[in-house]
């Protein structure tokens, strides 16, 4: 699946490794494509960064889904905030010192911080969640790629001078922080329950990624308006198609969808 591609129909359970590959490769390809196509062909192509971010968001949402099926002792949202907290520190560092290797350095340093926090959580805090280390690496990595991807779309490049001027100094990094974090944590939180299905949750991740893309498109107007319209339109398209798909899956999964009506009767509940 190419970074810019639309989600294929997700059937049944997808194994984690596929989604991990989708997230890392899609994320990095999107970010680099945005950077190079932007400077070589046209600034219009900076929307690719947001597509990369969507790949990372879907991956992050799947990682949250796996780790939160264990009891964390506190809500799902905290892990999303942790992911973006680690991600923002790592990605600013990566972009600041990495130059052209910035996104990769951001990703690797996020993964290292994630690994250390995962080890600390299990060994020192005694959480004893078997997949904690791996999940923390994944969540931090996905958070970092989301931040770098959205920043690339907003600034048109991931070179840190531009990112600093167009994303960090005006404070738009705050909206990346929370819109990316919510896109990662919300899908599983919104679909929490015994009858949760992976395809429905991940469709929702695409939808929330679409919203983040629209926001990134809006901000890209500050750096130059060429990329704004294509980014917003693709974002709205992704939002709409995945929302329609999500509603379809809700109809498939829910007990009943009623226009209105009374509560189920006693006999029905038996």
């Amino acid at each position, binding site marked *: 699946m190419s970074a810019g591609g639309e989600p294929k129909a997700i059937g049944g359970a997808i194994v984690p490794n596929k989604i991990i590959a989708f997230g890392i490769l899609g994320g990095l390809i999107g970010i680099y494509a945005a950077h190079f196509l932007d400077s070589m062909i046209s600034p219009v192509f900076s929307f690719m960064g947001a597509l990369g971010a969507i790949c990372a968001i879907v991956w992050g949402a799947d990682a949250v889904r796996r780790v939160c099926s264990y009891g964390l002792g506190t809500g799902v949202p905290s892990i999303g905030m942790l992911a973006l907290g680690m991600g923002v520190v790592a990605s600013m560092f990566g972009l600041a010192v990495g130059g052209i290797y910035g996104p990769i350095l951001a990703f690797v340093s996020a993964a290292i911080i994630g690994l250390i926090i995962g080890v600390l959580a299990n060994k020192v805090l005694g959480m004893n969640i078997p997949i904690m280390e791996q999940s923390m690496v994944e969540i931090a990595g996905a958070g970092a790629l989301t931040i770098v991807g959205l920043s690339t779309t907003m600034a048109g490049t991931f070179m840190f001078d531009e990112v600093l001027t167009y994303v960090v100094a005006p*404070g738009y*990094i705050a909206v990346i922080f929370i819109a990316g974090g*919510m896109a990662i944590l919300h899908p599983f939180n919104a679909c929490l329950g015994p009858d949760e299905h992976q395809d429905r949750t991940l469709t929702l991740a695409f939808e929330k990624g679409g919203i983040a893309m629209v926001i990134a498109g809006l901000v890209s107007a500050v750096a130059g308006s060429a990329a704004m319209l294509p980014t917003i339109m693709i974002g709205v398209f992704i939002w709409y198609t995945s929302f329609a798909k999500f509603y379809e899956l809700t109809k498939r999964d829910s007990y009943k969808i009623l226009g209105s009506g009374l509560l189920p009767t006693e006999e029905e509940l038996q």
Partner: protein
Amino acid sequence: MEPLIGMGVLALMGAAATIAGASEDLESDVGSQSNPNSQVQLAPQMMYPHRIYNKAISGEPPSNALMCAIGGTTASVLMTAYSMSPLFAIAMGALFAAIVHGSYSISAFLGRPASQKRFKQPVYLDILRSHTPVIMGYSYITTFCILVVSYLMVAVLGHPFPLPLLAFIWGITVGAIGSSTGDVHYGAEREFQNVEFGAGLNAANSGNIVRRAESGLRNGIDNSWFCAKFGGPVTGIAFGMTVFLSGWVTTVFNPAISPIMGWLSVVAGVILVLIMIIWNRKIEVAARAAFGPYKEDEVAA
């Protein structure tokens, strides 16, 4: 800056923050968000299906931070890239934030009941249609007021943080305050009006939320009607007090004048905190005297 102008701006910020706090709490009551929603979530499992919105976006702080940060970002983009007037930019920002918030609300309302298929909780579309615009309306008010507070801090009081970041931080704070104060009125009282007043929720009653209203079946709008009498306004007072008092100490004793003034502002803040500790103690003593113990002391009896 003239101290009087500073005080006037601060008063305006306090007023806007009070409205933001009240609308934040009512927004979370209409949609049933945050901690009290755990009972709405639990009810179908305990064989109590219901017609209450299930707005499990996340805790209130992240969801409010999201809408405020989106509003602040949109307003800032409109002001820098299109040179719009601040008021119009803030209104547009709040509108966009409300739309995004509506989308998040809908996905939570569809997602949670669909994941409870085995407990036979239906998805009621009329609830979706009637409640989502109300939620969006409240979220518009909250975002607008927070943006006014943040904009005044940046533009008039000269705060160094950029507008979207300040809006983000105040969003986290209003959510934290709303879920700590007003939500208790919804969770501990409104959801459990079927048990005797004056007690916490007995664990045995978990999930047994009130599902029938004065007429018909209870929904989230009924809940906000109740919470607007007490929970919403006190949340507004709490957030307004936080914004006002934390700005008041540095406006009256401005650290820009001299370090001594800065330390006086610290002393003033500490005195305010001590007053609140004593006030809480007074409430505690009065409540213990008024309500009395729940059980006799076994040794004395």
